[in-house]
């Protein structure tokens, strides 16, 4: 792999940048792999990377219907945090945050992980109890999260309006290690690093079927580029998981919803952190480019249309303008939608399936980006060992049958 560094940049500049090599190959699929990952989003690429790096499995193909990183990875609002309530969730997301902290160096790709803090606003007593419950549980789980008074909220994020509003801010929970990362760089960094370890990333190749043998076990996948054999197939297809799993005859506890996001025109630094309000349904941060990056909850109905409704956007922006009324004159530059796969308990599924050789990583809902390295890491483990890592062991499909839900939504955590 061609090394990236300031020195290399300087050296190649002298040659007019003509000597840079492709960051990844554009291979045709081979007839057979040890593992096929369906979906070249951040999670799928990360799984491939860790299969190669940590488990020595390099005969891996990542198959992508469109272009790599073009789904939710390239559409999300890039928030990273780990202050989840339940032990199981905290362990999973904290695993991810620890990987984020060294990811640029590990991948030799600047993913711009910026721990500028994630601040969740409390607007009423119920929020306060819920956030304090998170803060205490997080502390005992070794996850940083602290309660701020309204004044401390204002001090940490001066642009916020905390008083003259319909639901004044009474405090907030701050995870200082939380923040943002550059979404495209995550996909590209994992792609480049996986490719350099021998992983084939096959773009513009649609999976049309999952072939199962007489025993029921997976034999490979049918694609628009022909049949590709593999004894292990990991599905990491986000909003399309139900569709792909149906090819193997597996019904999923998932529904796919549109999730919208938008950015403003760029302005000079005016918002120092990530702020989320579940009570009034909006979150905001400012990108390195200067755009205000804004999102909210999902639209109301299941859809694969990758677009949402205007009335959802208006509610998101009326909330933002309530929180930061001086931004009313900023302007929306771009608005888009993704497809998020939502489970009944709003926690992901990273697990084996009833089909031997078929694994699934899905159900990340509106918050999958933050887990990218951790999710890929434990999914790789699950595929390589044919058993879950202890971190993802609770995130099974069977938990819905048995009632062992990990209900972060019910626990009044913010939905993102």
């Amino acid at each position, binding site marked *: 792999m061609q090394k990236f560094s300031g020195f290399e940049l300087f050296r190649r500049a002298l040659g007019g940048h003509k000597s840079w090599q492709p960051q990844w190959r554009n291979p045709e699929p081979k007839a057979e792999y040890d593992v096929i990952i369906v979906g070249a989003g951040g999670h799928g690429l990360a799984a491939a990377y860790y299969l190669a790096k940590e488990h020595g499995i390099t005969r891996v193909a990542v198959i992508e219907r469109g272009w790599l990183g073009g789904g939710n990875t390239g559409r999300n609002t890039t928030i990273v945090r780990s202050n989840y309530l339940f032990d199981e969730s905290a362990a999973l997301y904290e695993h991810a945050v620890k990987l984020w902290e060294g990811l640029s160096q590990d991948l030799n790709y600047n993913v711009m992980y910026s721990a500028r803090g994630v601040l969740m606003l409390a607007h009423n007593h119920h929020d306060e109890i819920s956030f304090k419950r998170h803060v*205490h549980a997080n502390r005992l789980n070794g996850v940083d999260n602290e309660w701020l008074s309204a004044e401390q909220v204002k001090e940490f994020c001066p642009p916020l309006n905390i008083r003259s509003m319909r639901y004044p801010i009474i405090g907030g929970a701050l995870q200082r290690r939380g923040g943002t990362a550059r979404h495209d760089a995550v996909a590209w960094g994992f792609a480049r690093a996986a490719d350099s370890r021998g992983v084939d990333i096959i773009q513009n190749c649609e999976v049309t079927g999952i072939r199962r043998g007489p025993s029921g076990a997976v034999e490979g996948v049918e694609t628009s580029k022909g049949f590709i054999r593999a004894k292990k197939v990991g599905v990491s297809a986000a909003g399309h998981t139900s569709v792909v799993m149906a090819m193997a005859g597996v019904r999923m506890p998932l529904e796919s919803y549109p999730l919208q996001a938008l950015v403003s025109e760029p302005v000079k630094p005016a918002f120092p952190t990530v702020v989320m309000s579940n009570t009034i349904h909006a979150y905001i941060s400012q990108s390195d480019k200067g755009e205000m990056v804004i999102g909210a909850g999902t639209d109301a109905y299941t859809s694969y249309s990758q677009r949402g409704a205007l009335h959802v956007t208006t509610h998101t922006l009326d909330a933002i303008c309530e929180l930061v009324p001086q931004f009313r004159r900023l302007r929306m530059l771009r608005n888009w939608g993704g497809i998020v796969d939502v489970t009944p308990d709003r926690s992901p599924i990273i697990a084996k399936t009833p089909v031997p050789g078929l694994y699934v990583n899905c159900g990340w809902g509106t918050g999958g980006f933050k887990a990218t390295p951790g999710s890929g890491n434990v999914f790789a483990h699950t595929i390589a060992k044919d058993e879950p890592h202890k971190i993802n062991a609770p995130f099974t499909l069977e938990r819905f049958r048995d*009632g062992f839900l990990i209900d972060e939504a019910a626990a009044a955590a913010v939905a993102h």
Partner: protein
Amino acid sequence: MTNRFRTHSGGRIDRGAPVSFRFDGKTYSGFKGDTLASALIANGVHLVGRSFKYHRPRGFLSAGSDEPNALVNVARDAARMSPNLRATQVELYEGLKATSQNRWPSLGFDAGAANDFVSPFLPAGFYYKTFMWPAGAWKRFYEPKIRAMAGLGVAPTLPDPDRYTQNYAYCDVLVVGSGPAGLAAALAAAESGATVWLVDEQPELGGSLLAERTATIEGKPAQQWLSDTLATLAAKDNVTLLPRTTAFAYFPHNMIALAERVTEHLAAPGADLPRERLWQLRAREVVLATGALERPLVFPDNDRPGVLLADSARTYLNRYGAKPGDRAVIFTACDAGYRTALDLAAGGVAVVAVADLRREVHGELPARALAAGIDVRPATVVTGTTGRLRVSGARLAKIKGGPSVDPVGASETLACDTVLMSGGFTPSVHLFSQSRGKLVWDAASGAYLPGSSVERERSAGACRGITGLQRVLEDGYGQGEAAARASRDASSPARGATPPPGASSKSFPAQADDLGTDGFIGATPHARNPAFTKAFVDWQNDVTAKDITLATREGFRSIEHVKRYTTTGMATDQGKTSNMNTLGIVAEALGESVPKIGLTTFRPPFTPTTFGLFAGAARGDQFDPVRKTAIHDWAAEHGAAFEDVSLWKRAWYFPKALPDGRREDLHAAVARECKAVRSSVGMFDASTLGKIEVVGPDAAEFMNRMYTNAWAKLEPGRLRYGVMLREDGFVMDDGVVGRLSSDRFHVTTTTGGAPRVLAHMEDYLQTEWPELDVWLTSTTEQWAVIAVQGPKAREVLAPLIEGIDLAKEAFPHMSVREGTILGVPTRLFSVSFTGELGFEVNVPAHYGRAVWEAIFAAGQPFGITPYGTETMHVLRAEKGYIIVGQETDGTQVPDDVNLGWAVGKAKKDFVGKRSLARASMSAPDRKQLVGLRTTDPKVVLEEGAQIVADPKAPVPVPMLGFVTSSYYSAVLGHSIALAVIKGGRARIGTRLSVPMPDRVIEVEIVEPVFYDPKGERLNG
């Protein structure tokens, strides 16, 4: 400064109305009808901005909404400050103050321009390859530096005081764009009687006709025809004309979002007018007449101030009487360059030369240029420009072979002060693409054109690749007729067949220049070392041709990847001037055809759209409805503090004035209120509780199915506490239910749960059990509810109530009776959420305040004390009564919160029952509701605090449960808390720890009932 570059006459500006304005602190003058851009150009000012990355000096590129360079800040005052406005769209008004952006210390000398010198080290995506060492330096050092450099304008720092409004509207035919095609379409539709809306982003309707100098339509000069047509349209009742209105997004089912700028152009907007208005317009049929955008040519140094799009220069000249310079060099790949050249020459601008990329030049326009003595040079390119803050010369070179591949010959530098370029026109298909219509590549014109439609929509004129004024007018008219016809047919399919050009029942004889479809996509050839020249593709984001080839070299093959890696097309113009040239360069680099490369998605909005427009009137108390009870004003008058509970304002506590003039704090007020209830009597506004009247012969059966409890045997006149589960077995809501008669139940719910519970009931009733004869009616707002609680409650109420015997035997605890109070009908409940003797007086809401006041007066001898939600919480916690949402979080089954008794074991089924049968729902380590006592009775635990067995255990510390409710009980003289703890009931009597950041609090697990465990006080 005078308008040295103003023509002597002509244009649509009002020369009788001079306007004075300031730019970067300097005063200039212009005319009414000018944009900021045209006025500055008339004053000879071209340097108006700095680019995003290299801070290169920039001038105007275009005259419209596609402008990437001339972004300014316009401020009416400190709060009314708008960054990033395009000077080309800012209408001039007296006193306008604009400043340039992204420069320090000044526009002429910008320290950030140092970036331009190190630009070889800052190629596309450079930041992905560096700034990684040492770990952590990104966030601490590099990122803040980059962020400070990035960004364009400065965000306002004061809340925006302006108003924004929103309107829903409907019409038969919406026409977007008021150029010739749109005008003709609107005319045709309007004549058919359809309701027609014609919208255009510009301040004046007319589109390209506004800049016509020589064309004629139906024998009239084009501008005369335009004003006649607008007058015709304006006179029709069925036509709505909206200038200054951008159709910015196309939503499913023909809903178009329009942003109308109402007051932005006024020197003194009145306070009653909104700044902008959002129209959510639903059109039966849409005609898109959005025209075409001129493409720049990508040649070295094409970004110097003074380098403009040729047709934009013509617009400045003809429409605003503003000359782009004194000496123009024109670089063109189509006939538009000649049209501009001819108009410039007529307007007194010297045309030094026309360099035409095409090898052979023929046709009427070039011939007229030659005839006019203009130096026309076929097969010639511009390979560079000179000058620093303004272009001073253009280097021209001859192409030896075909345009894109062959080397070029020796160059010659021509002195000039403006370079005008035209790469042809790109049909504006943004809205069509947003509508999910399919674009098709038209090889003949080298453009993506609208293919099949998804919505009831059709394109007309230049946006579908039609050229020539007469054909455009006739196409517009034909589309307008077809749209009107289709709008009358409700059964019309989603897409109407688009009529072919010229399928119009009316002809529009017109004389005008037909520019044809020639043009160029990509980077023009030059002999300079491409690695060290900057030929800009995306002006604002500083993306050059070589950045794009670098991306392809690095393996970014998808156009979406190229866009993201280089940021081309991601600036505030969203690629209007750059996307096609990017495609051309990528296609050439990859050796593919343009249509093989694909297209990036056209995302809304068409142009940047103000946040306030979306927020509309929703701010402050109008952000969400503020729901107040009938008794709210009384509480406010009596000094209550309020808390938000869902949309409601609830009295939280009633602080009394202290002798020293201060008021009690929460703690003191609650202690006093609690003691009053326990010792005498208190009153509480419980009106926000949800209420549902369940009526019908099958009411009891329905209740049986919806609640865990058994209802069949509940006698009329009695109350029962009911528990409702979700189908997954978890507690959803609770409340007291009264049976008024065999077929009528008065159900209460939690305050926040009311809408949810009603919807849940309707769901089952309508979709699972439609056969049940029972109906649900929300009565939350019908009844004001006054809880009178305490040992003296009966004595207070008895004298006021008529028709109900309040004696204990006649009206036992958990009963309901109907009677009157003050002559007002009441449903009186004997019920307690405090553990004391208690009643709840339900009266029609209009009488709530009067009845409250009467009870307050009647209670004076007993010292009756109004209390709020905080005291209510303490009193119920002393009794171990749960609050759904506080002791539960959606993961508790009834037994977890000691409500197992409320589950009708004999019932065959109820919502949630099957889920309770899962093994996990009765596991011994489930968290169970218990009480907590702190060793130090004064210590009040923090709600949400976690409970552990061993606070010294290493992280992650195993947690057993958490504190759900915690208060100081003034009545008991010690703190109390409720908690849910794994296997909690078996732990009663044991001790556990609550680790806090600064200390560990020891607690004893106790029964969750702290006060009157036998319930003796309930009966008074």
